[in-house]
């Protein structure tokens, strides 16, 4: 019998990854990445463009062979159990790859046929899936008549056609309007309640904060931080932020308390501190500037960990 990797409570983990590496020629896309995904949780994989998120997902699906390390899904090594593993995974890829030659409904039945699902089972399952993503009235429409949000919803329905235990979502809400985004979020919550494990990559920190139970931040293929959204905010950031916009160069920073952290980005100055009242008091003295006081968020953590420089 194979030993299945388990977390500290001895629950078997869905994804077990140790010192995972991926090299393309001489460049390293993923370096010594280690994490576990526990069942029925939503796990976030965060990082700037080019951080290695999609490469990691591709390795997880067996679409990209790893250069080193351990990668097990459902307790099976990905290089041996690739087909059995994919039987139990649903994926929403970053770029749309719906089949343009088919209708909405046919896209689901065709995708199901690659899983060798019984046509009878598919015919029963498809209307329910279309209803869930509110595309039932469009069942017989061609793909090119759908909006971006509809396509994404259909891709999500397609990912569920094999009733997967692990749902992999690669930037599921990028480019969507707020309505569509909220709908996707509510569907993800629904999936989680239905007992599915979710692996999510996103650029939207608000999204990660809302959905993820646990997340990792990676950059240049390496792990920078790991924890729940609240843990990460506590660990890497002061509780409050004062954002100041205007002629920030005139503000004298020498007199600020030592415990405050300052950061300048273009026309903006960010003051981080645990003492909210002191930040508010400080902002009273800045008559000519725009001041915004708020709680620290995951975005502050993300920018602190990965810096403000633009990425390719």
């Amino acid at each position, binding site marked *: 019998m194979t030993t299945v990797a388990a977390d500290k409570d001895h629950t078997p983990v869905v994804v077990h990854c140790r010192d995972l590496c991926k090299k393309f020629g001489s460049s390293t896309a993923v370096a010594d990445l280690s994490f576990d995904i526990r069942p029925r949780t939503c796990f976030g994989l965060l990082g700037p463009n080019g951080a290695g998120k999609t490469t990691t997902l591709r390795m997880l699906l067996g*679409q990209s062979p790893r250069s080193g390390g351990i990668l097990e899904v459902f307790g099976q090594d990905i290089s041996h159990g690739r087909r059995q593993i994919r039987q139990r995974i649903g994926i929403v890829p970053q770029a749309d790859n719906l089949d343009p030659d088919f209708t909405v409904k046919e896209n689901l039945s065709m995708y199901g046929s*690659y899983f060798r699902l019984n046509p009878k089972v598919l015919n029963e399952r498809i209307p329910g899936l279309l209803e869930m993503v509110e595309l039932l009235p469009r069942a017989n429409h061609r793909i090119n008549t759908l909006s971006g949000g509809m396509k994404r919803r259909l891709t999500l329905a397609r990912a569920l056609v094999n009733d997967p235990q692990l749902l992999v979502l690669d930037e599921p809400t990028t480019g969507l309007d707020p309505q569509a985004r909220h709908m996707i979020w509510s569907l993800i919550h629904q999936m989680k309640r239905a007992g599915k494990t979710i692996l999510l990559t996103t650029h939207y920190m608000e999204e990660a904060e809302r959905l993820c139970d646990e997340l990792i931040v990676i950059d240049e293929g390496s792990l920078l931080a790991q924890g729940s959204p609240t843990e990460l905010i506590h660990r890497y950031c002061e509780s409050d932020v004062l954002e100041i916009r205007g002629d920030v160069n005139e503000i004298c920073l020498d007199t600020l308390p030592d415990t405050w952290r300052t950061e300048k980005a273009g026309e903006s100055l960010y003051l981080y501190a645990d003492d909210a009242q002191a930040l508010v008091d400080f902002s009273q003295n800045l008559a000519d500037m725009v001041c915004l006081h708020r709680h620290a968020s995951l975005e502050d953590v993300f920018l602190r960990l990965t810096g403000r420089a633009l990425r390719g």
Partner: protein
Amino acid sequence: MSTLAPPRLRLECLAVWRRNALVWRRLMAASLLLHFGEPFLYLLGIGYGLGRFIGELDGMPYFTFLASGFIAWSAMNIASMESMWSVYTRMVPQQTYEAILSTPAEVDDIVIGELLWCGTKSLVSGSAILAVAAVLGAVNDWDALLVIPVIFLTGVCFAAPGLIVTAYARGYEYFNFYMTLIMTPMFIMCGVFYPVSSLPGPVQSVVEILPLTHAVEIIRPIVVGQPVTDLALHLGALALFGLVSTWAATILFRRRLIT
């Protein structure tokens, strides 16, 4: 699994074949018009027109000679075009294979499914020419129908090198090299228009080993109702060519799609 392993046959390849068949069914009318209309015009124009000056060739009317050669050429041509332009479209702009590869289906299933599909398209096109030739009086016996599996085999064998080219392709322009440098010379020299035996000696010995020559050597006598000489040799050569190309195409597609 090693990337050099021979292709594995699995049932999933039929799902890939079925996908293409369902798309084709939707565009069938236009496709059939092409498959019946083109050979009809060619055979009438060249076969009858040129045939009046040529008369008989290899003991048969030139029209019959050309029609049977066209069947072999069309099997090669249709399979090559499908395995290059259409496969590239599914692979790159449509990302169909990426979607398929997130299911339990594998690269091998895509390669085998596409080969079977290309063979099927060749079969449709070749059968259409056979039908047109029969209507125009070039076919005398129902035994000519035995050519249908050979057309399918020819299609599969020529789809495999097409897939090899596609595995390297960075754009559609890439295929012009293969068409101009490989396909067109075979079309002209491999016995479609005139017997290979009429070529000068050294050229003849090169042309004799080309796969289209073998296909013509099997297809022509079956269509005309003559016994096939060296059937095992021609069939074996064609099959060997197809198998080696299929293996190579599978390796190259694994490298292209699994990175």
